[in-house]
C-alpha cells in the first residue's frame, strides 16, 4: 500500500518535473531562435540564410555586415537578454520577499534607486571607461539596495506588506528618486557630458552598449543568479510566514537582507543598461507562476529564461516598429505591463490575497 502510494506519487513528481523540463526546453529553443531573427532585423536586413551560411563558413560577411552584426546587433541583443533576465529574477525575489505578487523592481522603487545611483555615476565619471561604468554600476547597486530597504521599512507591518502600503511607499519613493534623476538630467544637458544617457535611461531605452559594458553586466547577472539559487527555497518557507520560517530554522532577517542585496545586484545590472523598464519583473514571473505553480526554486530558471526572451522580443519590436525612429522599450513594456498590473491588482483585491 505504502509502496503503491509512493510509486504513484513518484509518477506525479515525474510529471511535474517533466512539465518544468518541457517548459525550460521550450524557452531555450525559443531564445535560440529569437537571437538570429532579432540579429537580422533592423535598418540593414540580414536574412537568416545569410547568417546561417556565414556561421557555416560557406560565405564571408562583408565588413559592413560584420560591423553591424558584431558591434551593433549582438551587443544589443545580449543587453536585452541580460536586462530582461535581471529584471525578471529580481522581480521574483522581491515578490517572495514582500510576500506579494505585485512587487516589481520598478513598482517598489528599486529601479528608481538604481537609476539615481547610476545617474550620479554618469554625472561624476564618464560612463564609457570600464572604471567609469563599474562605478556607475556600483552606485546603481547602492541606490537600488537603499531604495528597497526604505520601501520595505515603510511598508512592512508584522512581517507582511499590505498591498496598499507597498504600492504607496513604492510610489512615493520611486517618484522622488526618478525626479531627482530628472534634476540630474537637466544639469547634465546644461553643462555635462552631453551623452544624453540619462534621458535614455529615464525613458527605458537600451542604449547601444559596448562589449565591455555587456561583459560587466553579464558578470553581475551571473553573480545575482547564483546568489538566488539558495534563496529560492528559503522564499518558499518564508511564504508560510515569519513564525513558520523561524521554527523551521530559516534565519528570517538574514534571508531578507540577502534577498535585498541579491535583488539589488540584478536590478542595478539591468538599469545600468536599460534604465527604467517597467513591469517586466511583474509579468514574467506571474505568467510562469500560472504554469509552474508558486515554488520559487522551480520558477527561478524559467524566470531567467522567460525574462530574457520577453525583453529580447520587446526590444526588437521597439527598435523596428517605427523605424527609422526607435521606441524606448520601456514605453512598450509600460503599454503591455500597465493593464496587466491593473488586472492583477483587481484580482488581488477580489481574492483578498493579502
Amino acid at each position, binding site marked *: 500500500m505504502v509502496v503503491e502510494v509512493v510509486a504513484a*506519487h*513518484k509518477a506525479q513528481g515525474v510529471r511535474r518535473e517533466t512539465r518544468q523540463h518541457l517548459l525550460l526546453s521550450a524557452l531555450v529553443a525559443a531564445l535560440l531562435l529569437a537571437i538570429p531573427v532579432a540579429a537580422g532585423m533592423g535598418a540593414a536586413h540580414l536574412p537568416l540564410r545569410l547568417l546561417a551560411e556565414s556561421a557555416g563558413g560557406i560565405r564571408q560577411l562583408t565588413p559592413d555586415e560584420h560591423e553591424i552584426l558584431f558591434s551593433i546587433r549582438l551587443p544589443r541583443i545580449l543587453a536585452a537578454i541580460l536586462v530582461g533576465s535581471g529584471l525578471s529574477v529580481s522581480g521574483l525575489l522581491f515578490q517572495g520577499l514582500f510576500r506579494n505578487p505585485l512587487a516589481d523592481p520598478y513598482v517598489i522603487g528599486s529601479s528608481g534607486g538604481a537609476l539615481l545611483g547610476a545617474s550620479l555615476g554618469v554625472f561624476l565619471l564618464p560612463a564609457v571607461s570600464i572604471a567609469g561604468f563599474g562605478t556607475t554600476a556600483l552606485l546603481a547597486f547602492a541606490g537600488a539596495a537603499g531604495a528597497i530597504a526604505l520601501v520595505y521599512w515603510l511598508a512592512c507591518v508584522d512581517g507582511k506588506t499590505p498591498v496598499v502600503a507597498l504600492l504607496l511607499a513604492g510610489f512615493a519613493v520611486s517618484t522622488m528618486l526618478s525626479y531627482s534623476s530628472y534634476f540630474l538630467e537637466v544639469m547634465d544637458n546644461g553643462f555635462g557630458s552631453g551623452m544624453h544617457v540619462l534621458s535614455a535611461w529615464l525613458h527605458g531605452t537600451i542604449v547601444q552598449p559596448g562589449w565591455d559594458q555587456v561583459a560587466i553586466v553579464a558578470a553581475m547577472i551571473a553573480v545575482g543568479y547564483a546568489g538566488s539559487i539558495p534563496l529560492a527555497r528559503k522564499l518558499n518557507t518564508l511564504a508560510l510566514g515569519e513564525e513558520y520560517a523561524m521554527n523551521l530554522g530559516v534565519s528570517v532577517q538574514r534571508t531578507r537582507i540577502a534577498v535585498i542585496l541579491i535583488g539589488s545586484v540584478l536590478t542595478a545590472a539591468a538599469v545600468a543598461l536599460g534604465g527604467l523598464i517597467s513591469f517586466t519583473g511583474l509579468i514574467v514571473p506571474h505568467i510562469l507562476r500560472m504554469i509552474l505553480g508558486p515554488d520559487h526554486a522551480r520558477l527561478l530558471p524559467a524566470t531567467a529564461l522567460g525574462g530574457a526572451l520577453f525583453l529580447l522580443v520587446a526590444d526588437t519590436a521597439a527598435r523596428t516598429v517605427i523605424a527609422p525612429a526607435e521606441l524606448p522599450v520601456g514605453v512598450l513594456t509600460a503599454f503591455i505591463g500597465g493593464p496587466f498590473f491593473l488586472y492583477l491588482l483587481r484580482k488581488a483585491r477580489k481574492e483578498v490575497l493579502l
Partner: protein
Amino acid sequence: MTPLLEFSHVGFGYGKRTLFSDLDAEVFADDCIALVGPNGVGKTTLLRLGTGTLAPARGDVKLNLRSLCSLKQREIARSIAFVPQNVEVSFPFTVEQFVEQGRTPFLGLFGGLDAEDRAAVERALELTDTTSLRTRVFNQLSGGERQRVKVALGLAQQPQLLLLDEPMQNLDIGRQFEMVDLIRRLRREGIAILASMHDLGMIEGVFSSVWLLTPDEAMRQGTPREILHPQVLEDAFNCPPRHRPRLVEHTRKNMEIAI
C-alpha cells in the same frame, strides 16, 4: 529516564508584565500533555519558549539536556515541531508543497528533497489522512483540513515532540473528534505532545496529563481528573460563582462524551 524537554526555573515576561517567574516542568517521551489556562496567561508564549524562538529571561529550556540557546534553530527543528494557530500562505502552494516545507531543517543550501525526505512527507500525509488533499491549494482548504495539513507539516519534520497551539480552535464538533483521533494516533506513533487547549471537554481520555497556567500562581500539573475539577477550574478561570452549577455540568458532561 531523562526528560525530552525541560523548563527549569524559567522566567519570562513582555515589558513589565511578567508571565512566568519560576516555571519548572518536564516533558517525557511518552507524554501527551494538555496546556490549559485563561486567555492571555501565556500558553502560546510557553510553547514558543519550547521551540527556542523565544528565549527565557531567566532560567533555561533544555532539549535532551542541552540548552536550546546553545542549539541552532535548524537542530531544534529536527526534534521539535511547532504547529501554530494561524497561517497565511502568500502564494497558492499545494498541500504537498506546504508539507514539504517540513523538510527544510534537513536540507542543505543546494539540492532538493531526496528519497528519505519524500518518504517522510508521504508518511506525514498518510498519518494525518491528507494524502487525498495533496494537489489542493492550501489557502482553499476548510478549517479542519488546514489543521490536519499543518500537523502533517510538523510530522514531516519527524519530531520527537509536537507542540500544538490550539489544535481544536475553530473546528466543528466532528472535526474536533477527528483531531482527537489524530492526537491518539500520534501518541501510538511514540510522538510526545504538548498542546494548548481551549476546550476542556476534549481533554479527558486523550491527554495523559494537564498543565494548568493561572495568572500570578505557579503552574499546576496533574492528571486530567485532578485538574479538570470544577473547584480548580472555577478558581483558575475566575468564573462568576453563580455559573458554578453550569461549570460542574459542563465538565461532567464532556467527560462522559470523551469516555
